[in-house]
């Protein structure tokens, strides 16, 4: 069998495979919290993993770029300051990751590897193995086909699983993924023609299920990049943003951060990286007190210029959105990605009103 050829595993063998992985690695997977929410969390037994779920609202990026990330500890010893790098978690498997989130993780890695590579992110990324579960049905608010981030992936995964009935079709993306199969080689067999055909059918069915709905990024990008968005549009939508920061905190591709030193306890201080939000008023405040984006409309404008303009598309190779739909679900107002993109295209803002 070709080393990275696709293979299949019977569904009744999956628990054994997960048990073998659990013996050696930590597994983060969608599971059910005490209150019934579906969340990504560390599992302790194979039975805790969810196989039918909507993508959890909590972003997977916290396992690559935590909301609060200790970077280094400082301690004064004998008059000298000793610096110790923060602990990076041992090898982790992110299991049953949705395609949009895997794309988001790849986007963040790319971002933090550019210019001055970030060692902490690189080390965290190196310790992660990403096993995706291809989406055979669209999630209610997702629009990943518009952002080339799903429902099936061509890259950005270590293993891609597809539900093909009584078995899972497994595509190997990297050696890290192959290593997970090597933990239980007896459970996998090469994918035959029927299995491959079922996988292809599943992808076509999933894509067709999205219908004709699309987010029209290209149209919005043309308008933004050719300065055809009236300033009044941003002004009109700004009261509908309550500046909670959820869109940036939950977005798989938002990477802005701030760095702050936590107060010392026991003589040890910790330098941390924290998620920041371009929608917070002090995000661009300067030391003089001047704030170039004091008004909410300026901050919203900046966010969508960054997400959708051709300038960043050329640099990043994609729009700054993976179509996961989290901003639609979490926005306290209505300034989520699809609503704003529609407003940019139409040149009018109606507050996301529900029209009968």
């Amino acid at each position: 069998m070709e080393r990275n050829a696709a293979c299949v595993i019977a569904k009744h063998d999956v628990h054994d495979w997960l048990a073998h992985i659990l013996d050696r690695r930590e597994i983060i997977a969608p599971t059910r919290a005490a209150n019934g929410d579906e969340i990504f969390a560390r599992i302790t037994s194979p039975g805790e993993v969810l196989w039918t779920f909507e993508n959890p609202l909590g972003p997977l990026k916290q396992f690559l770029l935590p909301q609060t990330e200790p970077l280094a500890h400082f301690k004064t010893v004998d008059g000298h300051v000793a610096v110790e790098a923060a602990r990076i978690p041992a090898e982790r498997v992110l299991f049953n990751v949705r395609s949009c989130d895997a794309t988001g993780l790849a986007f963040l890695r790319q971002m933090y590897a550019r210019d001055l590579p970030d060692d902490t992110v690189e080390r965290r990324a190196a310790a992660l193995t990403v096993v995706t579960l291809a989406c055979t049905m669209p999630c209610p608010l997702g629009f990943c086909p518009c952002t080339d981030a799903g429902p099936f992936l061509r890259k950005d995964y270590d293993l891609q699983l597809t539900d093909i009935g009584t078995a899972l079709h497994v595509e190997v993306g990297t050696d890290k993924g192959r290593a997970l199969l090597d933990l239980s080689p007896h459970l996998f067999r090469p994918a035959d023609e029927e299995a491959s055909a079922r996988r292809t059918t599943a992808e076509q069915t999933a894509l067709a299920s999205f219908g004709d709905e699309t987010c029209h990024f290209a149209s919005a990008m043309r308008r933004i990049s050719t300065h055809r968005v009236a300033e009044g549009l941003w002004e009109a939508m700004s009261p509908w943003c309550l500046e909670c920061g959820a869109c940036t905190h939950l977005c798989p591709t938002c990477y802005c951060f701030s760095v702050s030193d936590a107060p010392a306890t026991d003589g040890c201080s910790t330098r941390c990286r924290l998620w920041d939000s371009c929608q917070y008023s002090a995000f661009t405040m300067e030391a003089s007190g001047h704030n170039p984006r004091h008004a909410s409309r300026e901050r919203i404008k900046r966010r969508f210029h960054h997400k959708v303009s051709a300038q960043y598309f050329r640099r990043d190779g994609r729009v700054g959105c993976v179509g996961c739909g989290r901003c639609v679900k979490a926005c306290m107002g209505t300034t989520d990605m699809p609503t704003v993109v529609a407003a940019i295209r139409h040149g009018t803002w109606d507050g996301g009103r529900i029209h009968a």
Partner: protein
Amino acid sequence: MHLRGDGEGFLCVEPSESHPVSEGRLCARGWAASDATRWSERLLTPQVREGGALRPASWNEALGVAVQALTSLRREGRPLGVLGSGRATNESNFLAVTLARSALGTGHVDAGLRDGYQALLPPRLRTSELASPDTDFRRLEQTDVVVLVEGDVATTHPRVAMAILRVLRRGGHLITLGRRRTKLSRVASVSLAMHDEARRPILHALRCTVIDTMRGTYAVAAGAAPSALERAAALMAPARRAAFVLAPFDADTAVLQATAAEVTRFADDLVASGAGAPLMLPLPIRANTRGALDMGAVPDALPGRFPLDDAGARDRLRTLWGGEPCFTTGRPAAEMLGAVSGLVVVADDPLSFDAWPSRAAAQLAALTSLVVLDSYATPTARAAHVVLPIAAFGEEEGTLTNLEGRVQRWRPCVDPPPNVRPAWLVLSDLLHGLGARFAPRTLEAVEQGIRTAVPSIDAMRNEAPVPETDAPARDAAPRWLLRRDGMFDWADDALVTASPILRRDAASARRLYPNGVVMMNADDAGSLGVREGWRVRLHSSMGEADVPVTLRDELERGVLMVPFAHRDRLAAVSGAAAAIEVSVTCV
């Protein structure tokens, strides 16, 4: 909300999709909840004051010093007080009330910022109605017209703002009454100033116009453009159901009470005119203000909001607490600091909300004994004689009561620091040291005690009515009114001060104006010949001060607004008054 922690501590929060109120949303302060355990200056060990300075002590020593001081003061017959908090759990507030009325024999018990919430409760809106679905956000979202009396609800109460935006998305209407231009006033169908040109409350005029329109006794003159009041009336008259949302927009509780009373009259008139009963939604400042009130952290009621003379409530408390508890009316928080010799403060910082913090600081310094239970080194904790460090958010279990009346349970995601204890346990230790019979050793026992004292939410309907008062009449409009902005500075909220991200804005503003600032309408500034940052001299009956101005288009004319954070800088002109007439001259 899900809290995540690991060996590095409490690191992350996530919204809960299934929560019936938040529905997967968090406001900025919610997102910053994990910061409080790391970036605030934590209290990590008990401390006692010795030789004018605080020094570390063991738990036994610190509790012993506190118990001895409180016992001595009680024996000498000197007044004692206890401050609960809307930042503390129901269990801690209940034990704080137990400490006051049972162990210390005092009626001086309250919770900071409680009075601002209670003043907003319409007189006839009793607890049982508060617990009804009327205060459910989903019901609010189904209304046709929302009348919002606000400070800036999008900033202070984003979940409420979200519900109002949903009303607009469905095609409903919003009428705002306020003193500045806010996000919600910008999307409102009609935005009204709080007062007309003669400084008469506009709410009264709105009520008269709406009711007269509904009764057909008033109509817009033919050919005339309708006024803002007439447009508002045209929206409200045909509405099947309206909602009144009342935010603590003023620092003066009498003004809040008058507004609540006017809203009640408005509601009565709507019903009498054939409309559906409107929803009422008064908003508290602190997350658990309602819980503190329900647990009895109020000087004129017992747990369950029973009147002090309610025989059944008294009997239940005698059975639970033993002996004869104190059933007398005490002083509210605003008066307590200057009226007692010994004070126990649970999870709060009175200096952050007192109208005159420098005076309050002097009053704290004059106390014979100040015992502070807190997670953070607040100014009040620094002034204490005994500091007892308690667990922070995410470190202890307990319940909170949200403004819908839902009792929510919080579970810890990380352990508290090694020498830090849950607040309820520390209060229980104090009760035990003071010889109280009810000194529960488990959280379950505390909750059983609450169930004994407050048998059911249905029984919590005997709230003492808020007296109706009218807004003070004014014969003539003063030239300038210097007004304190609100009842609390959200930059002093623990979730903001502890967040490196959220505190930047306020910190920069305070650095820019270290000696205070007043906000002035830009047109007023133009007529005075004053520009941004220039200084003006304010003169009142109390004194005068020079202060820079910052210009705001959204302010009503003739009003100078003092940001709550700068209130002490203007104390020479305003004292502790919420509003005062002043003259203004250029410097």
